């Protein structure tokens, strides 16, 4: 009876096994055709990325971003700490299995059967995860899992363990738009994968399981908890001691970058990408493996980002906006914005670009894409035309009085008003610019004619649309901070226009040069004319609308002009030292007025100068103080600011030092 029962059972089990075997074979041969062909080399699937470099503190190129492809590094250029951490937490039997960890799979299967969820818990090895990342979707279906398992077998047969680990580390997603360990190390810590310390390596190794959940930018406590798990696993596997694990787990994490986009100058890099795609097309930029050496000075770029961040926070408070970090994404999109462009005057190389306060919130690059009215920031163009074409000088007397101009529209007239709503009467030109008198600008443009002013704007490199109207006097045609910074640089360079550029050199992966820019230069106005306007703008800083520059402690030789548009929709300050021309814009994207809590309008002086000063202090701290060179044929007079005549001892208040065209021999 017992023997018979056993025999029956034997045949039943045997039959089942045979049936299962046949079933598995059928399944195997059915599924095989749906598994994609494997490439010859795992590392070359995504092509070589284009590398983007900035300029480091000693002038050395520093990798700041990559375009397309995957930033690949060989295994021996990854910190051992990272490899150990990854193996410990993701697949501690990696060097023993052949694609699948059977014990772990059986454990997961039992657990899933208990929970009646066949595809719930996974036990994926590094090879399986790689197969999933490369060839399959992330859909949780048993067929996909089966295909992934079979592909893993083939991957293990076709490639060595080190090749598999290398491909995994170079392809896996670490969050924050970082694919591959090198990119992740750069994004989170601003360093190479080879330079990662134990704590950093453990944090990164914990990310691939759930990059968005453990994103340290968004959820540091969870990221630290995950790091603790990784460190414990490392201790269990003998890579580190339990003491080390505890010690490192308690260390704080210092992140270097931003949550989205390159850590250094996301707007700068975005603009470089835009320029490159315009020149070479997206395929070459993303898959050509190029090396782009940009003009970004990393020290200046970081100073610009910091200045914008810090001073906008203060402005938020002044205008009664909520603290930026605490508001929702939607609110952030409507928050106060700023843009900054800094150009090296002697070459035209753009050294820093900030196109907004947070690239993760808004990728709109206000530094190069925006077209906001410059307000009085346009006046130096008009004054330049008056000096160069009409022979005006800073001590030329003009009359600030009520004026009206026919608009050509029937009876309508245009009556420009000064910001202060009053009139100064007779005043010298320098004083008019220092006080930013709208009436004088309108009179000058009327005398010059609008097309003549547009001509001077074009000479200074302003390419935006400028309708040839009298209202140009008040800066009513939109320009970008990049254009205006390049235009102001002309005053610092004695009348030489240098087109701004962001790309210094482009090479292919073998070092062959595709393009090289060393800057161009063209004389657009005489040195004397440029200097006379410079002198007038210097007056604005020393005792005019831009005096805040001095009040905030920037004591280097500099000149500049504020700009505030009607209802304070835009606040500008464009200023320069002999070496750096910087334009700062502050405003809301939807052109809401910038108003203080008490309702007063915010000017360029209050809105933009604090950012400008903060940036310029840091940007120029390593330079020796030097003044603007005085061209031949310029001399200085001290004159009465109302009459323009040589000042007398009685003119102490009204006396003003002005630069004029001249060379009077002084007999000793």
């Amino acid at each position, binding site marked *: 009876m017992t023997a018979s029962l056993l025999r029956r059972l034997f045949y039943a089990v045997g039959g089942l096994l045979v049936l299962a075997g046949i079933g598995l074979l059928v399944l195997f041969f059915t599924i095989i055709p749906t598994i994609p062909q494997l490439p010859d080399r795992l590392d070359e699937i995504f092509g070589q990325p284009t590398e983007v470099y900035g300029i480091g503190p000693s002038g050395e190129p520093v990798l700041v971003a990559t375009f397309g492809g995957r930033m690949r590094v060989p295994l021996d250029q990854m910190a051992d700490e990272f490899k150990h951490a990854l193996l410990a937490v993701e697949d501690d039997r990696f060097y023993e299995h052949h694609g699948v960890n059977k014990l772990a799979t059986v454990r997961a299967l039992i657990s899933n059967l208990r929970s009646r969820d066949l595809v719930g818990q996974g036990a994926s090895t590094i090879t399986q995860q790689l197969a999933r990342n490369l060839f399959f979707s992330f859909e949780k279906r048993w067929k996909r899992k089966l295909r992934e398992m079979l592909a893993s077998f083939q991957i293990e*047969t076709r490639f060595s363990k080190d090749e598999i680990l290398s491909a995994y580390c170079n392809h896996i997603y670490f969050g924050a738009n970082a694919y591959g360990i090198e990119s992740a190390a750069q994004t989170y810590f601003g360093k190479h994968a080879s330079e990662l310390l134990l704590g950093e390596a453990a944090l990164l190794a914990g990310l691939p399981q759930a990059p968005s959940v453990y994103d340290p930018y968004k959820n540091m406590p969870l990221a630290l908890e995950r790091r603790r798990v990784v460190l414990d696993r490392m201790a269990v596997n003998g890579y580190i001691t339990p003491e080390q694990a505890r010690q490192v787990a308690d260390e704080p994490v210092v992140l270097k970058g931003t949550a989205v986009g390159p850590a250094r100058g996301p707007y700068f890099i975005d603009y470089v990408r835009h320029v490159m795609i315009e020149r070479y097309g997206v395929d070459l930029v993303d898959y050509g493996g190029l090396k782009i050496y940009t003009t970004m000075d990393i020290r200046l770029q970081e100073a610009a980002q910091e200045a914008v961040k810090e001073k906008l926070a203060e402005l938020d408070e002044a205008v009664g906006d909520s603290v930026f970090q605490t508001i929702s994404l939607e609110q952030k999109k409507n928050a106060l914005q700023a843009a900054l462009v800094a150009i090296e005057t002697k070459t035209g190389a753009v050294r820093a670009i900030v196109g907004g306060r947070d690239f993760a919130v808004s990728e709109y690059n206000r530094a190069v894409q925006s077209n906001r009215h410059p307000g009085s920031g346009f006046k130096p163009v008009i004054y330049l035309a008056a000096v160069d074409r009409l022979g005006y000088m800073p001590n030329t007397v003009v009359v600030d009085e009520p004026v009206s101009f026919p608009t050509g529209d029937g009876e309508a007239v245009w009556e420009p008003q000064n910001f202060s709503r009053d009139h100064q009467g007779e005043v010298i030109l320098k004083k008019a610019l220092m006080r930013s008198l709208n009436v004088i600008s309108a009179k000058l443009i009327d005398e010059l004619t609008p097309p003549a002013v547009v001509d001077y704007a074009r000479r200074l490199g302003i390419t935006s649309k400028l309708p040839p109207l009298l209202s140009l006097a008040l800066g009513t045609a939109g320009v970008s901070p990049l254009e205006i910074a390049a235009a102001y640089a002309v005053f610092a360079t004695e009348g030489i226009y240098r087109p701004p550029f962001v790309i210094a050199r482009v090479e292919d992966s073998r070092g062959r040069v595709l393009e090289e820019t060393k800057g161009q230069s063209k004389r657009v106005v005489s040195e004397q004319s440029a200097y006379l306007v410079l002198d007038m703008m210097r007056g604005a800083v020393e005792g005019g609308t831009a005096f805040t520059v001095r009040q905030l402690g920037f004591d280097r030789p500099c000149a500049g002009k504020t700009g505030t548009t009607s209802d304070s929709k835009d606040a500008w300050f464009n200023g320069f030292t002999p070496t750096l021309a910087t334009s700062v814009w502050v405003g809301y994207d939807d052109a809401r007025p910038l108003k203080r809590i008490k309702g007063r309008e915010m000017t360029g002086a209050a809105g933009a100068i604090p950012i400008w000063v903060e940036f310029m202090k840091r940007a120029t701290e390593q330079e020796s103080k030097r003044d603007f060179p005085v061209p031949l044929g310029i001399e200085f007079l001290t004159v009465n600011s109302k009459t323009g005549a040589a000042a007398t001892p009685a003119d102490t208040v009204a006396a003003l030092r002005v630069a004029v065209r001249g060379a009077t021999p002084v007999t000793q």
Partner: protein
Amino acid sequence: MSWRSLSPLTVVLGGLLVFLLIEFRLNFLERGMGAYLDYHNPERPRLAKFVQQETRNIEARQKLETLLDQRAHRAEPREPAPAAVAPSEFVELEGGQKLVMTRARFLDAYQKLEQTPRALPPSSEWDAALRHDRWGKTILTRGGWFRKNRLFFVDDQNKVLSEVSLSTEQFALLRAYGAADLSQIDRPHIQVYPPQTFFAALRTLPEPIRDQAMNRETLSDVEDRAIRVGVSDASADGLIQVIVETFGDDQLDYTSITLSEETMQALLQALGGVSR
């Protein structure tokens, strides 16, 4: 107990256990399947995304090679270094009534002035002024009915260190030389002769050769106005360039003549015989 006494089930289960143990140890099932899959790898389709990616990679590489090739074969020279636009060294003010020159520009203009005998400055007065080492620029003021043309040697604050008077011709020539960045004559490989020397040598040549060198019309036209004459070194094809610098209406002008080898030899002999 012999093995015959074991039930077939035990044998099968035991065998299965051994099979599983060996499989767990050696992974031969995975290896077998992996090898089979790898053997048939070429027969399976490639993923569309890889095909697209590879196409883009290839296109990018081809475009890159084309661009590099174009750059290598481009006829135009490499982009020059950033143009160092030097600050002006000469400025005219008040409609040309006042001229300002840097020290370097003035010395350059003065050197040319020295080569024009008819405008040669009185040496003692000028030498003392030129020797002053603190002057950084010069201011030239045009005179009027009652004022002479003056040349002031000044420091950077326009303080006069010394001054001399100028003839109208000297003023005009200094203005012309100061304004010109580089005249045709002031180039390497050009020997400058006073016009009297050159034209005297020209007149020593036999008439047919002289006429061949410079026709009479040109000769009479330029001789009176000539202030310097430049004679170039012989070019590879044996030709020589003669540039006559003339001055009239406050303007410098240049007349260029190319001489044949024969004429050149005769002229060089004649010039060699005339003291410069």
